[in-house]
């Protein structure tokens, strides 16, 4: 009896204590993630640019000269602030940005892309609304609604502000001036119907009227633009921003989708469009293939390089002559990490994006400057783009892409459904119903 072990109750107690403390320790790492309850309220907001030596880490996927140019211009003005830029290719950026922003070493400033909405819920992005008010961003930047997000990150256009656009982009209609002249077509058309008429005449002359590539879903460009033209702005915005109860199955949306399908069926669009990538379509158009192409200003440099003086662009025409111009666009938005220790410096950079100096950099990179009037004069295609942009801003006609903020799965769903539509596998009604089903599942 001398070798009696310690009373079982005590051993059990120790084991239970050790076990439960292990469970607690594991428990928190078994269900990892940022708390969505603790509010990271923006503290003291100041518009004074800090004067001590600061290094800001910037993560982006901007493959133009804009982001590096803006950083350099800002540094020239505030030499005490240096940047460490972490550029990642677009696809890789989409995959890695959420984990990058969740790390302790999160960059101070990051380019905002769709899919980062969950970071809002996790309070990993800084609510810059306070800085916005202090700096007066509402008057300096168009398109802020696209980066204004509800607390659960599910709806845009409402809630808190998380960033500003460094440069904006919009969709227009590129055309080949030489071909247009040769075919005797008059541009710009005053209405969508006239545009379609131009397509018909180009097609009759044996040309590809509308160059497009849908291997990766590039028909979303004409589709988004057609939705901008046909749908009531508030309806279109409600859907694109993911507002509960919004629908894309109404008669206007049906008209937009039917128009696109008709363009495909009548042979206006690149044949075998599902087998051509969007990049290849731009490349083909820049090489002189086809007559028209609906795409964004990001393609302007490539088109201008290929077609030279033959490159032109006009705004997407409205349904009725003289109606307000509306089109689809997005931008390169910058947001700030809630973990940044230098939020005031980051906010100063955001504010810098609206300046005249920034506009020069932005314009040279092929983007639209937030302040449309301060964009430098340009000739040729870039001049056309600048004029188009000024008209759109004047009419407040910039609308979000429907796949960016409606649901996280919408980019894939839209690509799949557009391929089915272009391949003649589904009707317009089924096409729109599939988009709506994705929407309803997420927002139910």
């Amino acid at each position, binding site marked *: 009896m001398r070798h009696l072990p310690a009373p079982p109750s005590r051993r059990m107690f120790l084991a239970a204590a050790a076990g439960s403390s292990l469970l607690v320790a594991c428990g928190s*790492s078994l269900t*990892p993630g940022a708390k969505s309850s603790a509010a990271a309220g923006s503290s003291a907001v100041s518009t004074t640019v800090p004067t001590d030596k600061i290094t800001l880490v910037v993560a982006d996927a901007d*493959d133009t000269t804009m982001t590096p140019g803006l950083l350099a211009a800002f540094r020239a003005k505030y030499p005490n602030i240096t940047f460490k830029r972490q550029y*990642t*290719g677009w696809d890789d950026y989409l*995959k890695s940005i959420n*984990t990058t922003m969740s790390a302790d070493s999160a960059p101070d400033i990051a380019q905002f892309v769709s899919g980062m909405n969950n970071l809002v819920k996790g309070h990993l992005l800084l609510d810059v609304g306070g800085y916005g008010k202090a700096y007066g961003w509402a008057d300096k930047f168009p398109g802020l609604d696209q980066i204004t997000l509800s607390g659960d990150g599910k709806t845009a256009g409402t809630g808190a502000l998380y960033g500003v656009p460094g440069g904006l982009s919009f969709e227009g209609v590129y055309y080949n001036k030489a071909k247009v002249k040769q075919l005797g077509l008059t541009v710009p058309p005053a209405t969508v119907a006239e545009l379609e008429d131009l397509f018909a005449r180009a097609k009759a002359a044996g040309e590809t009227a509308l160059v497009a590539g849908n291997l990766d879903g590039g028909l979303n460009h004409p589709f988004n633009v057609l939705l901008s033209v046909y749908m009531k702005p508030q309806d279109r915005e409600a859907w694109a921003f993911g507002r509960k109860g919004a629908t894309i199955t109404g008669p206007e949306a049906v008209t937009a989708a039917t128009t696109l399908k008709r363009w495909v069926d009548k042979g206006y669009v690149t044949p075998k469009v599902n087998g051509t990538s969007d990049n290849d379509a*731009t490349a*083909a158009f820049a090489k002189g293939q086809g007559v028209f192409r609906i795409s964004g200003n990001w393609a302007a440099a*490539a088109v201008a390089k290929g077609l030279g003086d033959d490159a032109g662009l006009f705004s997407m025409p409205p349904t009725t002559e003289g109606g307000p111009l509306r089109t689809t666009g997005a931008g390169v938005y910058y947001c700030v990490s809630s973990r940044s220790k230098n939020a005031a410096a980051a906010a100063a950079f955001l504010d810098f994006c609206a300046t005249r100096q920034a506009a020069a950099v932005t314009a040279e990179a092929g983007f639209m400057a937030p302040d449309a009037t301060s964009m430098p004069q340009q000739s040729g295609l870039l001049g056309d783009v600048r004029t188009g942009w000024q008209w759109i801003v004047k009419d407040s006609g910039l609308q979000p892409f429907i796949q960016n903020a409606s649901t996280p799965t919408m980019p894939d769903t839209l690509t799949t459904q557009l391929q089915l539509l272009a391949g003649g596998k589904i009707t317009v009604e089924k096409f729109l119903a599939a988009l709506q089903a994705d929407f309803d599942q997420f927002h139910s």
Partner: protein
Amino acid sequence: MTARQQRGLAGPVVLTVFGAAVLVPFLSLLLASLQPAGTPLTGLAWPDGVHLENFVHAWSAAGFGPLLRSSTVIALAVVPAAVVCATLAGYALATMDVPGGGKLYGYLLLGLSIPTEVTVIPLYYDLRALGLTNTVPGLALAEIAAFMPFGVFWMRAHFATVPRSLIEAARLDGASSWTTLWRVLMPSSRPAVTTLGVLYFVWSWNQFLLPLILIQDPSKRTAPAGLGFFTGQYDVDVPLLAAATLIVIAPVVAVYLFFQRHFINGVLSGALKG
């Protein structure tokens, strides 16, 4: 021509066709890398002039210097360790009575079917809890773990083909299992081990999703990450991408060629018969 001669020709003809099927896509890659930057590409096209400057541009644009260096560091951390671990385990599972050996083997094989495209996210948080994200050891451990099932599978299959009598003879001579492995079996295992090492090197070099998620600093990622620089959101620069691709694959091909010669020699010198 006699039937026999025709048959003798069939082999080389078939092999040449196979070789061509492999080579043509590579040829288009090579030709593409010599085109002027920004050229869109269609099929096999002879470049007008040789634009070697693509390689210089690709190198500096993607910052291949640090990327190749970190790829090398990671491969050096992963390959020897993984090959040794896999060899030991394969040897034991094939030639010894490991308690629960069948179950252990099954347990290891299960790893072949783990879809990394989702487990990498919990893995990120696990490594973050250990403070191993954004570090070489963290990534190396993840790669060793991911490569282990194939290695054990491969080495076990290899050791299973070694004649039992050879091992018995060594044991009768008083050799321990350790000595048997290194002195008796290793010489004839060189082709299998070299092949595994080359495969591990290639996989580690080309590993993509793991570095992308587990390493946050883009300049510390691996060589294939450099290819992402030429496929932007709206634009792909094909000649630069082709040049970058050749830069990324050159070291791997070099390693493969080097070790391949090594292991042919091993075979030809008759080491195989032990």
